[in-house]
């Protein structure tokens, strides 16, 4: 090794590690020299002692070392401390009281400087302050990190560390992946790592010096954020996610390749995949492939096994298991056969052990389910209500604080007749229906809409930047797509409630919890839509109670005699009568006027009566206008078609005038009562 023995990583701060270790876990002891005082941080294992001792002595006399900081009790940090003591060094051991309780078993003789009792601070003679940040359970209860206020260097202990077979003193581009791998293995959970990272984010850090892996000089915030958002603790509780949403098999296979590349190197990975039928970008992100997803997933590992041997499989196994659990895919066959076999041989598990393992697995799956319910819906992979609530209140705060007048919309989409559906179909059909709905929703996606799934068959969509008009159009698009889809086992429709932020903002600017108001309005509108007869988009809270003194009726026919006769009779009964001679004209009238009834012939120019009815149905605000057919054409086909379009009254010409008038009166009366 012709590496320099020590490196000054910041003014007066030296890296004093050895470089000869194997096994991917590289240790980094540091030495701070402050005048005639020196502080040694995590001096390392017994194996490293010779190097480290030599390095330290080359910088300062042994006597100058006044303090040794031990971030936690692992042997690769602390095992060499007794050896330093034996060489005659005199120092205080700076550590957390919990760590102290353990490290004494190394047989240490020095005094302790317990940070808990000293306001988590150590002041050197020169006045230089070293602060200690508690990082509990990362990955020991009493773990801490050290921050040097003078040089703004963070000695992060295990945090920001990494596994690597190709070690560099300073972090390279691929360091992020290595770092994540390490944390996924060692750090217990995102819940625990997140607050600590939030603290780090608030600090002014110029350099992160971790105990394993490489020193981070640049993009410090990026690394901190990556850890803040990392779903770690994969051995404990895998988080289930929707594969399709994450990007499909393409995504998980890319992750594996990237991980390999960071642990070994890119060339080795290329060697593995060179004869596979996939295309990928320079960073090994797969762009297209020509297998079924499952095949690709298996094939990669088969190739790895053939070309690189079982060692490569061992290395990647945790990630693979995590991904498999998270995204609900099968563990590739090679792991189940080769790996398991060698594992079993090595461990020689007893029957008892196996039984125990089973118990564990059951326990795990219970836990897993509990966790799934926390953020995501297990069937659809969409975010759930709990997540929605948090997310939505944040979003609305953002919208509120944004003065640019951006408007956001909220849709609540409820599949109709879901009780009945659940009653008449198996559970797997219900799931299939949910999945198909998500497929449709995803394919409708226009910009940044986010979908959620609430309990039962209720979905929500948050549209970040929209107008009321656009949102209504979007909702109608969804409603029509669902109603027209053939992907469901039976015809399925959805009722949609829609609310836009400006509706409530205009009303009162200082409402306490806008998210609750929005949610409640949307929910109320869904139930309104359902009570209005389902398969409707409801975007107004009050049913328009406007009623003309006389009800308005639209007559659509080309037969002048018919129009004449009916118009005369109806006007005599004090109805307002509009007439149209073709489908296009009729549709325009329906859209513009407030009508109570449409009476139409089927055979009309430009757009026939059925298409007219379909067009009317596709707009929620007019779809509930009663539709009566009055036609010469009345046969089995046409009547069936009419029924399928929800037309209740189908008169054949010649019609009985009294009957038609009676029906008209009843329909209009019914309207007024509503």
């Amino acid at each position: 090794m012709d590496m320099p023995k020590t490196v000054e990583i910041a003014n007066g701060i030296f890296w004093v590690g050895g470089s000869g270790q194997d096994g991917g876990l590289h240790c980094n002891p540091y030495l701070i020299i402050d005048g005639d005082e020196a502080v040694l941080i995590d001096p390392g294992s017994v194996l490293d002692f010779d190097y480290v001792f030599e390095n330290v002595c080359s910088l300062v006399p042994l006597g100058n070392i006044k303090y040794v900081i031990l971030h936690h009790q692992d042997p690769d940090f602390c095992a060499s401390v007794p050896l330093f003591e034996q060489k005659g060094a005199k120092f205080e051991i700076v550590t957390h009281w919990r760590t102290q309780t353990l490290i004494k078993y190394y047989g240490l003789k020095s005094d302790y400087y317990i940070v808990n009792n000293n306001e988590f601070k150590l002041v050197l003679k020169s006045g230089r302050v070293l602060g200690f940040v508690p990082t509990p359970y990362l990955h020991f209860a009493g773990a801490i990190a050290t921050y040097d206020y003078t040089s703004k260097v963070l000695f992060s202990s295990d945090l920001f560390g990494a596994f690597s077979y190709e070690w560099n003193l300073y972090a390279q581009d691929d360091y992020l992946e290595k770092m994540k791998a390490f944390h996924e293995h060692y750090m217990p959970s995102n819940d625990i790592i997140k607050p600590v990272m939030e603290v780090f984010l608030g600090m002014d850090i110029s350099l992160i010096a971790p105990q394993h892996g490489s020193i981070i000089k640049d993009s410090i915030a990026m690394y901190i954020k990556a850890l803040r958002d990392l779903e770690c603790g994969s051995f404990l509780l895998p988080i289930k996610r929707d594969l399709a949403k994450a990007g499909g098999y393409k995504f998980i296979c890319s992750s594996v390749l990237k991980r390999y590349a960071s642990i070994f190197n890119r060339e080795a990975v290329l060697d593995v995949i060179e004869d596979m039928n996939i295309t990928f970008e320079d960073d090994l992100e797969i762009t297209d492939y020509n297998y079924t997803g499952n095949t690709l997933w298996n094939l990669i590992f088969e190739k790895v096994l053939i070309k690189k041997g079982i060692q490569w499989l061992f290395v990647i196994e945790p990630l693979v298991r995590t991904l498999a659990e998270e995204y609900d895919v099968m563990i590739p066959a090679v792991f189940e056969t080769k790996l398991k076999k060698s594992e079993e041989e090595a461990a020689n598990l007893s029957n008892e052990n196996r039984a125990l393992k089973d118990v564990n697995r059951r326990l795990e799956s219970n836990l897993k389910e509990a966790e799934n319910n926390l953020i995501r819906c297990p069937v659809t992979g969409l975010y759930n209500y709990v997540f929605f609530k948090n997310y939505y209140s944040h979003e609305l705060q953002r919208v509120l604080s944004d003065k640019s007048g951006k408007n956001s919309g909220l849709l609540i989409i409820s599949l109709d007749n879901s009780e009945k559906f659940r009653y008449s179909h198996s559970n797997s059909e219900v799931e299939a229906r949910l999945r198909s709905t998500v497929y449709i929703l995803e394919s409708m996606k226009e910009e940044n809409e986010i979908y959620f799934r609430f309990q039962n068959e209720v979905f929500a969509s948050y549209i970040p930047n929209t107008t009321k008009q656009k949102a209504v159009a979007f909702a109608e698009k969804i409603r029509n797509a669902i109603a027209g889809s053939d992907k469901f086992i039976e015809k399925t429709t959805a009722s949609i409630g829609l609310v836009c932020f400006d509706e409530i903002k205009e009303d009162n600017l200082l409402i306490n919890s806008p998210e609750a108001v929005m949610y409640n309005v949307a929910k109320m509108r869904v139930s309104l839509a359902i009570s209005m007869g389902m398969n409707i988009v409801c975007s107004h809270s009050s049913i328009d109670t406007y009623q003309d003194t006389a009800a308005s009726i639209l007559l659509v026919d080309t037969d002048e005699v018919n129009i004449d006769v009916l118009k005369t009779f109806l006007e005599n009964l004090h109805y307002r009568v509009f007439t149209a001679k073709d489908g296009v004209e009729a549709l325009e009238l329906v859209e513009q006027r407030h009508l109570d009834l449409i009476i139409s012939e089927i055979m009309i120019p430009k757009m026939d009566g059925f298409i007219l009815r379909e067009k009317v149905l596709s707009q929620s605000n007019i779809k509930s206008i009663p539709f009566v057919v009055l036609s010469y054409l009345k046969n089995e086909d046409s009547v069936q078609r009419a029924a399928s379009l929800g037309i209740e009254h189908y008169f054949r010409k010649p019609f009985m005038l009294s009957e038609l008038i009676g029906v008209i009166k009843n329909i209009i009366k019914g309207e007024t009562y509503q």
Partner: protein
Amino acid sequence: MNASIKVWLTIAAVLICLDIFVVFRLLLKRIANKIRKELLENPKSSLVESGVSGKSRRSPKYAALKYLQMKQLVFLDFAKKSSIEKSIDLDWAEKKFLKGLKSAHKTKRIESAVYLGLLGTEKARENLEKSILVEKNAAVTLYIANALSDIGSPASIPALVSSLINSNHFYRNKVNLLISNFGEDLNVYLQQIQGDMRIEIKELIVDCSSVHFSEFTKNFLVKLIDTRENEIERLNSFFGSGKGDSCANCLYSSVSPDTNRRICRFKGDVNATYRCHKYKILPVSINSAVNYTRLVYKACNVLSYFQPQELDNSKYLDNDDAEIRNIAVKSLANYNSVNNLDRLFTFLGKPDTSESAEKAISMIIEKNSKYINTISKAFQEESNTEIRQKYARILSRRIEYFIMKLSSRDRKDAIEIITVILRSGRCSEVVDFLNKNKDLDIENELIAIIKQVVAQSSDLEKEFSNYLNERISTKCGLSPQVNTMPKMIATKDKKLIANLYVLLAVIILIFPVIYCIRHQNILFIVPFIEQLKTYVIDFNYYIAFYSMSISIIYLVLLFLSYMSAKKQARLWEIKNMSLLFKTKMLPSVSIIAPAYNEAKTIIESANSLLNLKYPDYELIIVNDGSKDSTIDVLIKYFDLTRVDYGFRSDLHTKQVRGIYVNRSMPKLIVVDKANGGKADSINAGINISHKEYFCCIDADSLLEDDALLKIASLSLDEAVETPALGGNIIPINGCSVEQGQIKNIKIPENWIAKIQTMEYIRAFMSGRLGWASINSLLIISGAFGLFRKERVIDVGGYLTSSGKYEKDTVGEDMELVVRISRSMREHSQKYKIGYAFNANCWTEVPEDLKTLQKQRYRWQRGLIDIVTFHRKMLFNPRYGRTGMIAMPYYYIFEMMGPLVEIQGYLMVVLAAVFGLLYKELALILFVSTILMGVLISVSSLVIEEMDSKRFEAKDLITLIIYSVLENLGPRQLFSFWRVGGYFSMLKTPGGWDKAERKGFSSSNVSDKEKMNEK
């Protein structure tokens, strides 16, 4: 002045007067009509008034007719009715129509029957009942039957039923359903006559049971099915060998009050057992056994619909007759029972019932989709590959559902089902799905399946590589298949060409020969130049008489046209909508619109054709391998999906590439096929159509919304079969069109198109209508015609190189009509080829001379082709008027005539040059060509105006002017082109000319290739 000039001058003067008279009449009639319309408007509003207010006010006489028309539309309640009836003179109307019912005039009888039906008085009914028994014309009987069923008195039932006896089956089919409307009263009557052995009565009961199903009809149907073998034996012995004949079932006898006696048309009141030997021509005696079996099947179907449990009996499920067995199996889908599905699974395994079982299972899924899983389970458990395919076919209706399953945990089953579905050749839906899908995982799952399937079948490989979009197709490892179409090589028909040369020689030589014979005395004596002069003068006389004879033929036709147009207009007036829309009254129709490079206009046309007034029709657009985006435009606009659509291949056509539909437009079917010309496209459309008739129409033409109704309603006025019916074509060039509807009717601005407008009106109004009235119509324009599908399939469809006769022709429309007439005559079947003068189809005509010339060349070549192809009919008495009059007319005047005319024009010019064109000759030529021509043209306008006031007064005057101008030049030019057509036939028989067209919206002038490219 010599005498003959005087005669000619007089004739000319008379003709001029006549021309002027006709023009004046045309203009005056327009004003008269306007007044009449106002007169009619007035009473209408006062009628409605009095109906509403209940006050009666004396109304004019027109009111009675108007009131009766209103009755076709609304049933008024008693109070309103009596208040209106008090205000008008209905007795007058009753008397008038009772008299009309006895008229010798068929149209008048029909008219009277209709109005009496609307009047609905006791007296009217009694008279109608009486006349239905004695009426001999089936068309009139139908109208009377309809009137009686509208009145709806149970007392009419016996008369209606007896009108069925010995009538033809067109009548019986319609009237059976009219009778069915009597409901419970009928049921009682039927029980009385159920023992009647006559097939007409049995048919009636079966038809009625399909409307009013009751205990009685059920038992009757069961008995009918069970005793069918004995009954068929009886029929065979009765009609087959000639034993046991009797008057009881005779065409010419009718029921007498005494059941033991019959009234014979010839012998009067006779004993029921009286025998004369007319029984052999009874309509029911033809194919009696086959017809009876059909009736039994119908009975089975009715039972299967109303009481399917009845057929769930081993007696029917294992019946000897395969059809009955199949109906019984299908009926299992019609009622809910737990194990029906399991039983259908077993029937699926039996070869002869598998198809019905498949249909039945599909129907069950349609009704209750829960069973999909039961079926997919059965599919998993089945080991027989063939049966698995059947399951797969059933499941393929819900293929999207299974595709969605690919992303779930139980994808294994879904993969298996989809694989088998694809293997059985149903891949359109998957292709469509993949082309639209965005989900990469589903895509890869499907591609894996496709790869596997394609490896085993090259057909599927072709299918996928042709229709999957490029990215996916390369991903599947498919290379685009290059379809190398064998280049059509136009073969010269040497025999035909030789014949044409001979004819040409004859026409050129005949006049010199006649000259030689007439003037043999001076032949070698007088100098050549003098002889030439004599020859020229002679020829001028010939040409004058030639044009005279054409004009006279036309005038005769014109007269016939006028009569028949008048009749049609009157009949149309009384054919009210409620009659036309009664069940089975009009035949079902498939409109077939072939399209070649019509991307610009296809949407307009499709919209127009989708919104016609007609009880039962479908629209089939056939894309004939267009080179532009016709098919994509259609798919996009109508949101079509490619489907696997089962169809028959009665006619051989070029390969059909795909069929597209949209479920919310059940009327529309779009067919994509390889290029094969217009005739080939229509043949493909015929294969796909499901209806009784088909209507072929150019995809760049527009139909008026009642055109189909008008053309098809002609079938009601004929007592015989109508295998082909033609409609009217009018140039659309000047009109503006909006969403497939003509907004403004205007004559074209372009003079070439204006001349053609006049020419079309003349040709259709005087020519076709006239020929149709003597049942010798041989041309039905390809742009709009209605054909009985069965007949067309019988004669082998349109003539194409891939069809039965392996021959192509440009005049496929005319050829088909000739072939149908020929076949009907050869099988001595009665038929009528009709022409509806008021059913309008608007089409684009060429606006420049070059295109027009090409079109005329083509027409002439088509004509020559057909006349020579069917020359066997020429002067052959076996082919009746068609062979004796129509064909010779086309041969002499249409095919050879132009050759004579051209010589004639040459001679006229020569005569002028030589100064030989003296007064008499000039006068005769003027009379025979110009004056008569003008007379025919303006008279055609009169007929055209009879139906509706289509053109504005200003346009009408322009047309009158053009009717004169047309005879001075254009007509001669057209003759010239026809000769050109003849000569071009000698050169190259293949290689069609292209006609150029522009889009409807006249502003975008775009040249477009027409159908005829190969």
